[in-house]
């Protein structure tokens, strides 16, 4: 698939994610929309992960550290063929369902349970270290939120990854600038983010995080980097795809009403068509 086709796919999967959330009347829509392009680029271009190789020790590893974006993550896994989308959509968060509101590794394709922020990166340091010990070819990826970076455990992991020069590790920060209580820079400032990572021995790539070409280039650069881990600081828009929710903090976990849903789906559809015919 071309980057343009992946962009179209990301819009389609956003629509499907909205259906999951409105059906369940639960979910974290803002972060779902900001992270979608990152997940699509990783799963459909850069990572060597599919239902066929899930038992292969050499498969790439992925941990969704910002586990609350489970709705978009599961939509992507369904699209990859790990499970049936309709089954997931119609049971998500419902009574007795296996599809709970955070990633859970009884679900095919999920390596690690998450939901409590600040665990993904240190776990991935362990996975990357194991890869080095075994001289295995796999790469390890994790996606964190920018609000999540306030957790001390993140920086303990950053330090360890720098120390062990884990060039098989690539972390992504979904830098949408918002968390629950408002702007990250007001709640607990993260800047200068690039310098912070650099000072811990990381290679840093800043890129437009809702742009497939930019993401593609960033992950390609990360693969080529030797001797140090890479962080892709993906500058995204929270709620990306519809002005109803874009850059609005309350849309962290708001469930759209009928009217808003119509508008959001209309906006997503429109954006998708524009890309298709560009």
């Amino acid at each position: 698939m071309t980057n343009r086709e992946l962009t179209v796919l990301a819009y389609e999967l956003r629509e499907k994610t909205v259906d999951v959330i409105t059906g369940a009347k639960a979910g974290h829509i803002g972060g779902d929309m900001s992270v979608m392009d990152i997940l699509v680029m990783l799963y459909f271009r850069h990572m060597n992960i599919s239902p066929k190789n899930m038992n292969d020790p050499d498969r790439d590893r992925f941990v969704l550290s910002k586990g609350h974006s489970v709705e978009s993550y599961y939509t992507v896994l369904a699209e990859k063929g790990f499970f049936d989308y309709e089954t997931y959509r119609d049971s998500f968060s419902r009574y007795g369902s296996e599809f709970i509101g955070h990633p859970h590794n009884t679900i095919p394709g999920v390596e690690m349970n998450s939901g409590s922020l600040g665990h993904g990166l240190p776990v991935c340091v362990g996975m990357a270290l194991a890869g080095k010990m075994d001289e295995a070819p796999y790469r390890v990826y994790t996606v964190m939120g920018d609000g999540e970076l306030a957790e001390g455990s993140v920086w303990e992991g950053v330090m360890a990854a720098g120390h062990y020069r884990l060039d098989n590790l690539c972390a992504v920060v979904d830098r949408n600038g918002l968390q629950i209580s408002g702007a990250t820079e007001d709640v607990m400032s993260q800047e200068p983010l690039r310098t912070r990572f650099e000072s811990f021995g990381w290679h840093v790539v800043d890129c437009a995080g809702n742009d497939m070409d930019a993401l593609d280039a960033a992950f390609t650069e990360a693969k080529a980097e030797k001797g140090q881990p890479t962080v892709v600081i993906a500058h995204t828009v929270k709620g990306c795809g519809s002005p109803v929710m874009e850059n609005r903090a309350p849309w962290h976990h708001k469930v759209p009403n009928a009217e808003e849903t119509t508008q959001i789906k209309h906006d997503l559809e429109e954006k998708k068509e524009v890309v298709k015919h560009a």
Partner: protein
Amino acid sequence: MHKLPELKTTGNRIPNRQAICDTLMTAAYQDRSVIALCSDSRGSASMTPFFSACPGQSVEVGIAEQNLVSISAGLAKCGKRPYTFSPACFLSTRSYEQAKIDCAYSDTNVKLIGISGGVSYGALGMSHHSAQDIAVMSAIPNMRVYLPSDRHQTKKLIEALLKDEKCAYVRVGRNPVEDIYSEENCPFEMDRAVILADDDNYDAAIIACGEMVRPAVEAARQLKADGISAAVVDMFCVKPIDREAVLTVTSQAKLLVTVEEHSPFGGLGSMVSQIVAAVCPKRVINLALPDAPVITGSSKEVFDTYGLNAEGIAGTVKRFLK
């Protein structure tokens, strides 16, 4: 002993967390040393009004629960009275060592408020459930543990905590709870359980804490209609547990049933059983969450699945009284 309250369904329900915010705001206007701290949790803590009204007495630390608790301890050591809010799941496990060392061991006046406790977060799963908090917090020397049952009791508890200088852990749920008491009739004495019974000759005693007290009272009412007399013990003070209240009901009742929104290990049931077993053995049945990730669902669905509701409690009393 107090009469079993008439239960009203007011419809006008507010969560206990909101009662905390109201009480603290009143206190904060009088006492500049009252400080609230949040970790990107002020909305879920219902503390946005406090943060808006008292910005100089509010501290936001971002998503950093360990930092949150240690900062609170530092503030306390320098004369502040911090009230530290975070979801109970993170506060009791992520910041456990900070609670142990910086609050309890160093003896600082930090009031840890665990919001959205138990299975309040329903389908969000085990990362968001706190079914261990009573056990772990109670195991720390010098840490007290409180689970108030309704908004009236929550208010009285916070008022009492505002007067003391020691650390404590308070757990409240996310959802609005129906009243048990009322503005005029809310018997409260710090660290004394509230014993509710219509007569002295009860056959069973139901010992509950937090949001399980309301269904316990409902169960006692149902049992009464079936000719079984049951007392309810509202053990909001899980630690220091009111031993005397446990012994009082144990000497009268033929059966004790404990009810809690917690793991079956190390919580209210364990503590009550320990007291009863040592002094005057009687049958104690523990109702609690299972030792497993709970079924996916809302907290009500979870309670119904495991019999943590009025029917389940009443049924247990009937079954074991025979």
